[in-house]
């Protein structure tokens, strides 16, 4: 890692690594810049920066779980349940913002801990454990809010209305999450163990490392990300919606996979998942701006997701041949 020239080679490798996704993004942007009147504007950029932080944070959390060869289907429900806790605390119990935010994060962590403990203690597939959590947490969200959207108002909105250096705080937090995640995966012992568990858990165990605490920690981390996404989403909408986040788990998985994360584990990058989120968001915003109808939107989104992965595959093969 400290060999001379690493820095230069690293940057070059990184440029090649991200070229495919950047090309897809540039292509989509060009198409929408030509077809919509106001796509290539600062306002579109600001609007997207305001909309995507929850998706980025969820995709980062999902990347960790996929890297260890697991899956977390419960993130959408966890987002709703943590958000519900935030709403109930602020509206019904009259809590101030910070304790309520801590409660929200705490709910995410607790559910993530439950996911991790249950799946590792009984050696159950995380698919089924988190599927159970998907149902249970959604039920909890309905119970907590009495199935009503809770309007919180200005006290929570100020979180996303605070700006630093021209960017909203949630956007900066999301970028921070991506940077921290990338460093953790690539340059920490914990991150390398995660990769190793995903690649071959048996080998990790045989080399004297207990994979269980690491796996539990990864699910806790994913739950924490869901709680953080909930705070940001509630602050953007000014309300806590018990129906929030239905289906976002699939979007997070799609973003990670577009970014080249393997569903089999052992391979993944948070920065690339971030690009995956961008691809999906540019598509959503662009299609809405040109006024595409719902069926068309879904058709195109589905095709582009698959096409992006295929395109990136070819880029990888070409890159290898050149090297």
């Amino acid at each position, binding site marked *: 890692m400290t060999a001379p020239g690493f820095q230069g080679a690293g940057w070059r490798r990184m440029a090649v690594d991200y070229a495919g996704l950047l090309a897809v993004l540039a292509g989509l942007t060009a198409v929408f810049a030509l077809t919509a009147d106001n796509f290539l504007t600062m306002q579109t950029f600001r609007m997207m920066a305001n909309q995507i932080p929850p998706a980025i944070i969820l995709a980062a959390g999902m990347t960790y779980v996929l890297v260890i060869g697991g899956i977390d289907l419960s993130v959408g429900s966890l987002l709703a349940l943590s958000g519900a806790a935030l709403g109930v605390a602020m509206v019904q119990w009259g809590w101030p913002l910070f304790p309520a935010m801590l409660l929200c994060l705490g709910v995410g962590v607790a559910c993530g801990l439950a996911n991790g403990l249950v799946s590792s203690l009984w050696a159950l597939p995380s698919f089924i454990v988190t599927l159970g959590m998907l149902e249970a947490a959604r039920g909890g969200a309905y119970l907590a809010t009495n199935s*009503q959207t809770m*309007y919180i108002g200005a006290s929570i909105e100020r979180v996303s209305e605070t700006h630093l250096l021209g960017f909203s705080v949630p956007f900066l937090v999301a970028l921070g999450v991506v940077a921290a995640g990338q460093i953790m995966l690539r340059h920490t012992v914990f991150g390398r163990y995660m990769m190793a568990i995903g690649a071959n858990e048996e080998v990790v165990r045989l080399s004297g490392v207990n994979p269980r605490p690491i796996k539990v920690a990864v699910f806790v981390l994913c739950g924490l990300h869901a709680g953080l996404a909930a705070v940001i989403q509630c602050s953007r909408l000014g309300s806590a919606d018990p129906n929030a*986040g239905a289906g976002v788990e699939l979007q997070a998985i799609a973003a990670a996979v577009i970014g080249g994360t393997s569903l089999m584990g052992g391979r993944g990058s948070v920065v690339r998942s971030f690009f995956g989120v961008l691809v999906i968001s540019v598509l959503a915003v662009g299609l809405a701006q040109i006024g595409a109808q719902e069926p068309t939107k879904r058709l195109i989104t589905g095709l582009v997701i698959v096409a992006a992965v295929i395109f990136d595959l070819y880029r990888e093969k070409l890159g290898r041949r050149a090297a």
Partner: protein
Amino acid sequence: MTVPRSFGVFFAAAALALAGCSGGDPAAPAAPAQAAPAAKTAKEGPYKIALVMKSLANEFFLTMENGARAHQQAHASEYELLANGIKDEQDVARQIDLVEQMVAQGVDALVIAPADSKALVGACKRALDAGVVVINIDNKFDAGVLEERGIKIPFVGPDNRKGAKLAADHLAAALPPGAPVAVLEGIPSAFNGIQRKLGFDDSIQEKGLTLVTSQSASWEMEKANQVAASILTEHPEIQALLCANDNMALGAAAAVRTAGRAGQVKIIGFDGITAVRDMIREGQILCTVDQHADKLAEFGIDYALQVLRGEATPADKETAVDLVTAETVAAP
């Protein structure tokens, strides 16, 4: 796979219904219940009435269920209530199963808010054949399919088109003539969504507003927030967002606020949920339409009771839709 199974359930259901009738009430006529049209046979109470709703996750249906339960407690001697909902609004197959289960339980009447205005007709026809009084609430059955099956199911509920026009007219009065507006629609296949869109269109034409774009946000707040933000960026001239339900109005209001256009872009919704009433009070949303969800199931049940007692013959019955504005919204 589903067809033979549901037929099996149906036969079991019919058998149980018959067994229930003759076993439970010795005075009941020996003739099978389904031989005579239900409307003409006045049965003896207390009745067993099933309420089959859409998603209980939606505040609207929860309000409906609570209204029905309160009504039942006030009339406990007259009927017994079995209330059921499905997990999400599109789980049509599960709702068909529920209808069949209710018939199997031997209910006298079925009050249903169908998740799909066509797919549920078959199950309801089988219920009718088994002698059950069927009343349609909330989402109206497709007239063509009813005719094709040769059955009549009375609809008790609001006129969504009229309600949407009411809200849009109120909006038009607050806008200059020819003002550019956008519409956020519900799920493209839902009948009430289509009706509300038609109501908005009626008003837009009549009052001379300019429709710039109309897009679906699938009834969802988050989705509406994204779509509304995109519309505001692409068409900054927009002066109003007409939303086919209140959840979408909440999402649109957040998008307007974020775009720094609060107060300049007016928003209207439909349903009258609590959060939107709060925002009408604050002036962030202009108006919504109350279709009295808590009363809808009650109206349906009352009507079913009348038919069971032989006091009414099945016919459509329209219920009230009321505009909720800053002037009419009640204090919290």
